[in-house]
């Protein structure tokens, strides 16, 4: 049962990744892209968790922790950059 469910979950997460990527490329302003990038990082955390179940390697959860941490720092950095009035190239 678990391998079948994992295939479905992989498919759904890939679809979500595709949608977030479309918004990342199309997004009219830079904050839209930052939001899409944060969602991509969140989806990748889910991907890593599902892959840990798939392969049975529980150490992959450390990767998920690091990805969540870097995504948070990237969001904070982008927001600071926007608010301080960096070069906008929408």
């Amino acid at each position, binding site marked *: *049962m*678990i391998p079948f*469910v*994992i295939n*479905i*979950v992989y498919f*759904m*997460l890939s*679809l*979500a*990744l*595709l*949608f*977030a990527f*479309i*918004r990342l490329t199309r997004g009219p*302003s*830079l*904050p*839209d892209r*930052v*939001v*899409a990038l*944060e*969602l991509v990082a*969140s*989806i990748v*955390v*889910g991907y890593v*968790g*599902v892959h*840990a*179940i798939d392969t049975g390697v*529980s150490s992959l*959860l*450390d990767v*998920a*922790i690091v990805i*969540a*941490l870097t*995504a*948070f720092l990237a*969001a*904070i950095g*982008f*927001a*600071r950059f*926007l*608010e301080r009035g960096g070069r*906008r190239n929408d």
Partner: protein
Amino acid sequence: MTDIIVSILLIAGAAFMLLAAIGILRLPDLPTRMHASTKAGAMGAMFIMGGVAFFFLDSIVFARAFAIVVFILITSPIAAHVIGRAGYFTGTTLWDGTVKDELRENYDAETHKLSSGYEGSPESVTPPPESESPEDR
């Protein structure tokens, strides 16, 4: 039994993430997109981590999954708040159907001072502001 719980948690998490992605693709402006992606995305990641914890049934894995859940729960609202604030102040246009933007009249984007809109009126309890020092922003 464990298989069923893990399957339900994984499917629920993936469904939440798919909903977040559909929302970020379909919704019209920045605050509504953030409304979809932040909450549903964090919920999906938390459900999947719960599924991981139930699959391995190991104390160390449980601690790691719990750490990820707590971290996402703390950082996701902070990141959304900061991005939304930056997006609002950099002049992102709101959706045409937006009914109310109460911050626009009462907030001074230069000095970052928020007024209630009732200063000096008879209902006001506090006296009107005399002089603002630039320190207490």
